């Protein structure tokens, strides 16, 4: 693993309402804009939008899966920034690269995009040697 290595993009199944309902319940997010279309539209949104942290979960999982190939490292820091809205039916894919490698730390830069290539979120994952 070296600086500049690309992470094979990972695509997740299209965002559907039952998933948002299940995630909202499991993540204890009380906000109805994620599952009630009428409320979402009233709030000026085009429709129900996915939870930002659901997209982060995709990003973090992609990072951990990539690093799992290299034994003995674990996630020490994860940062994510939300930049775009994810709508129902959108297909999210996560891509990225290795941005830094030292003896003690590996850093990955990741991003989540929709099927149109719009940027939804960026992520930075740091792994430390166990």
């Amino acid at each position, binding site marked *: 693993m070296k600086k500049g290595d690309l992470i094979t993009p990972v695509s997740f199944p299209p965002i559907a309402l039952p*998933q948002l309902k299940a995630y909202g319940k499991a993540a204890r997010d009380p906000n109805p804009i994620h599952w009630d279309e009428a409320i979402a539209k009233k709030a000026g949104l085009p429709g129900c939008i996915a939870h930002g942290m659901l997209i982060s979960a995709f990003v973090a999982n992609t990072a951990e899966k990539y690093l799992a190939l290299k034994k003995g490292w674990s996630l020490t820091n994860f940062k994510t920034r939300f930049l775009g809205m994810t709508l129902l039916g959108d297909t999210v894919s996560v891509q990225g690269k290795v941005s830094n490698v030292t003896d003690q730390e590996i850093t990955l830069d990741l991003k989540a995009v929709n099927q149109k290539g719009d940027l939804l979120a960026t992520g930075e994952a740091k792994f430390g040697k166990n």
Partner: protein
Amino acid sequence: MNLESFVGKKTGTYSETLKPEDVKAFCEAVGIPFNQEKIPPTYLTTLRTGEFDLLKEIGVPLPQILHGEQEYTYEKEIRPGSAIQFETEFTQVTKKEGKNGVMSFLIFTSKISSNGSLSATSKTTVVARGVG
């Protein structure tokens, strides 16, 4: 709204168990495998209770906020089924005037511990539209 005067406000300490069945439901909803040795990194989002309680105390209505940024630092792995404690503090606020009016960036910091020692810290930035 004088948000600065609330900086430094803490929630007090919450205690609960991260139930394996809840962690499992979370993994199923995301579409990732459940690992009984450790919770997924973003499972800590279920502990935003403290942020919501503070926002309520400060007087910022939930529909006006957006999740801007999230950062987690992990000290040790947390097993599903662990009893954990956490405390959230409102640590910073910055105001910005934009083309859509005023916006405030609020930062909340949480310390999460299990078995008496620190397991993770969380830093959340929320954007409050029309608040400032």
